[in-house]
């Protein structure tokens, strides 16, 4: 039976959460193979670090005997360079596949108490509105969902309708993009 609480009827309360945060525009890569490739996590993260590419989101599931998948998101502006590097610079076994997706975004719900319920509510409510889910990960204090960047506002609205957020608290939208530079400014005397 569909839990009434998801629709926030008068008889049941919606799950209370603290807030929402939206990411900047990201792109996503999925590397998938029939078995664990030794050090794939280390290799990929090393290549990305060498290009000064911050990983905004990463999930990995390894399995000695079955499929193994590494998925991660980078800033959208890194897509061309990362595609080239991953397709040419990464020595994966030939049976491994690389798929990519541009223009994705991350919506983070915090805090993450009742993470399974939050997961269920977002899956059901986004599914009903044909909003895709491309990835999910919990962190220390939140649950993050990857979806289509072009419909992020709609995705946020649906979450706001399905969960109870504090009054007058708008989703946090990033206004700055951070780059870590190697430039070191020393104090001038």
């Amino acid at each position, binding site marked *: 039976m569909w839990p009434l609480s998801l629709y926030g009827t008068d008889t049941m309360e919606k799950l209370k959460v603290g807030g929402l945060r939206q990411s900047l525009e990201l792109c996503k890569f999925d590397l998938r193979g029939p078995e664990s490739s030794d050090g794939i996590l280390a290799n990929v993260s090393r290549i990305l*670090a060498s290009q000064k590419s911050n990983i905004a989101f990463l999930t990995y*599931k390894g399995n000695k005997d079955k499929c193994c*998948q590494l998925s991660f998101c980078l800033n959208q502006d890194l897509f061309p360079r990362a595609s080239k590097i991953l397709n040419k610079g990464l020595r994966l076994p030939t049976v491994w596949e690389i798929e990519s997706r541009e223009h994705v975004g991350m919506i983070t719900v915090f805090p993450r108490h009742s993470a399974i319920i939050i997961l*269920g509510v977002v899956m059901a409510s986004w599914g009903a509105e044909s909003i895709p889910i491309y990835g999910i990960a919990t*962190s220390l204090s*939140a649950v993050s969902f990857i979806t289509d960047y072009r419909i992020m506002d709609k995705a946020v609205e649906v979450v706001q309708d399905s969960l109870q957020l504090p009054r007058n608290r708008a989703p946090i939208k990033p206004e700055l993009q951070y780059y870590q530079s190697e430039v070191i400014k020393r104090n001038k005397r």
Partner: protein
Amino acid sequence: METIAVYWEQPIKTYGFQKVTDLVLIEFSYPLKEIISLGRTLSRDALQMVKAEFIIAQEFGEMISVTLCLSEKEYGDFWVSLAQAPGSTPCEYTYPVGIIYFHGPHFGDRYGIAEASFSALSQADIEIVASGCSASSVFVVLAQDDIARAENVLSHTFEVAK
């Protein structure tokens, strides 16, 4: 206007390592076209008290694969609920596993954090069962026997802020 802020540290600082052990790693897949029914199953009130220490989900083709870590006691409740969801593949589980997780200043905005973590574990021949990194957190799921060794390795890679 351009503002350059420089933040560099060697070694990378973290706020400390947290560990959770005696967990069951559960994995199942579900057709994406049926995700509404999976959502309904997971949002049942019966699961409200089930505390997942770690959750990731990955899409592949027409399916979504969900991996989560629960305590041995909560695994039973979860399995019973999930069994009622139509379309789910059989649950696979691994026991015992442990999680080591940590976070640090601006981890989500800086490159090199994942590389430092995974390279250190790889060089120590510690097999990573699963991992999830988002916001400022790094979560690594390992065979329980590897947790202490992983903490030792990571403690030499990162500096715990005092």
